[in-house]
């Protein structure tokens, strides 16, 4: 009797659900015209979804087989995911602030020259991330942050003319 769900079963089931949702979305979208006998726009996605469904079944069966073979798994150590979660939040915040800061500032009458928002948010992100990863000396942290931000600014904005906010 299946008492626990393992990774393969979860992925297989998830894949089947994904295929179901995508199929509904495909059928909801325009079929597209055939071009000189070539299949329309739905053809390839439907082919893929059909293939992925077969793979989803295979994964689920494989997962069930592993369970029935009695293969045990180690318990998950959730503490180790703290770093990952923190990095995820940090990354989101970095990109979100960079993409919106200019607009927010403009709403209050502050105008940043080109590249300034990128430099400010990058410097803040680096400083916080270095500290989080163990760089306790704030002077070294600040020097590194400024140096790296400066190099990136010169490299991307001045030399490569990338239009950062």
């Amino acid at each position, binding site marked *: 009797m299946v008492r626990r769900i393992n990774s393969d079963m979860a992925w297989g089931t998830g894949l089947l659900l994904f295929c179901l949702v995508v199929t509904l979305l495909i059928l909801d979208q325009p079929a597209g015209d055939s071009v000189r006998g070539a299949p*329309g726009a739905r053809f390839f996605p439907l082919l893929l979804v059909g293939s992925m469904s077969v793979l989803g079944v295979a994964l689920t069966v494989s997962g069930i087989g592993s369970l029935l073979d009695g293969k045990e798994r180690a318990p998950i150590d959730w503490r180790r995911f703290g770093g990952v979660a923190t990095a995820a939040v940090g990354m989101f915040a970095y990109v979100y602030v960079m993409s919106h800061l200019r607009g927010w500032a403009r709403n209050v009458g502050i105008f940043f020259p080109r590249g300034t928002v990128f430099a400010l948010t990058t410097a803040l992100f680096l400083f916080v991330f270095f500290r989080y990863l163990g760089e306790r000396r704030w002077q070294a942290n600040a020097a590194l942050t400024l140096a*790296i931000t400066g190099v990136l600014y010169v490299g991307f904005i001045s030399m*490569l003319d990338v239009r950062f906010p």
Partner: protein
Amino acid sequence: MLELAVSQILVVDVFLATLAGVLLGLLIGAMPGLNVTMALALLIPVSIALPTGPGIALLVGIFMAGMTGGAFSAILLNIPGTPASAATLLDGHPLAKRGDGGRALGIAVSASSFGGVVSLLILMLVAPQLANVAGRFGPPEVFALVLFGVLIIAGVSSGSVVKGLVSTALGLFVMTIGLDPLTSTPRFTFGIVELQRGVSLIPAMIGLFAIPQVLEALRGRGSELAAGIGTRVGRVRPSFADLRFIVPASMRSSGIGTALGIIPGTNGAVAAFMAYEISRRAAKDSSKFGDGDLRGIASAEASNSGITGGAMVPLLTLGIPGDNITAVLLGALLLHGLAPGPLLFDDSPDVVALIFGALLLANLLTVLVSFGGLKAFVQVLRVPKRVLFPVIVVLSVAGAYAVSASFFDVWVMVFFGFLGYLLTRHGFPIVPVLIGIVLGPALEGNLRRSLALSGGDFGIFVQRPIAATLLVMALLVVFGPPLWKYARRRSTPDGPAGTGEPDGQSASSVDATVSASPGQDGDDAEPASTHQRPNEGRDG
């Protein structure tokens, strides 16, 4: 043609532009988060500002050296700088982890240069004839070849063929997002304007290969983050014995890369993996493939450099780019007022000679600069991880943004970063995802064009001998190992179930990007080697 090519490059500004391109290409290739396509796209305005000769030489230098530079981060950081160097890390990174990074890099540079020079010389001699053969490949043949390449990569990249296929299918699905290329019907765009142009390759690639590395390292915060990566490079110049050892694999792989490069829609990654697999099967002792075999590195690099010359054939003779990088080069040539196509050889033989000459010069300069300054390049990678990883994140964000100055691409990069992490944690390889994204358009386009030719009859793939042969080979790649395993299990009913390695199965199964190997059920496992041996009980 050779004489004309040499005379074109013996001009000071062309030489200096090529050298500048080589330096930039190596640097950009070595840095995770940056890539050759982006660098080429960003430097086109610089190229246009220069005269035609130096302008094209600069881009060619970046093109050639960037392919080699991609091996630096693949070997030392386990992050491929280009899709083509994804095969290099299978054997390159294990060597680097053992302190033999310099040897791996030296072999990569040597084989890469060998492949580039060989392919170029072959092409200069037989370009017109090769273009004629490639011109006869119709959509069914190209579809079959691309499918074969995609499935080979799915089979090689992981201990589980099923998981490799799932990854491939996900990548192929991603490429269906956007406007249908044949009918312009929107697919999965949900009314979002940015999605109409589809998912951009560069943010997806950066996300898939750079972010999971950072996240995985953060699971083990501690003293290891204070350590640099790839600090032990050691001797870089390969020994004569090593060079002699890799000659057969390099020659074979150069030929494979050159031949595949000619066919539009194939690319360095397909060539690299195909050459790798062929070399592994041809080797008398393939036990070390996936664990630091020099022939693995040489095959991948010789082939992906061989494809650079090959990809120039359809570009120059047909005006069809062979891959993403040559697509950017096509744009550059058009902006320089040149018209790649059959008439280019007649109307502008000096430009053709210049391109060939610049490729030759770039190959030679890459070797000289690499061996002379590789330890200096590698210094960039000696910084502690706690400094390098945040910089990788910033470079990833900047690199993704630089594609089209859009934060949408950055969010795409972040999405693929977390997708890549989830996939890797649960034993799914991510190289096939990238391959699916890169080759999806060619696969779908040629499939639908083939069916258009046949009026919807799938029999066209059986009626064309080359297409049929390739499809049979593709099916063997997918179904061969599990069927063999099943047959062996049935023939030895008292043997251990689910263990042992069928002869037809890949001897080295690698989850190619992060250093921790997830447990069988994907739960939190102790960090282990990147390499998963078949007898570790993975699903087959």
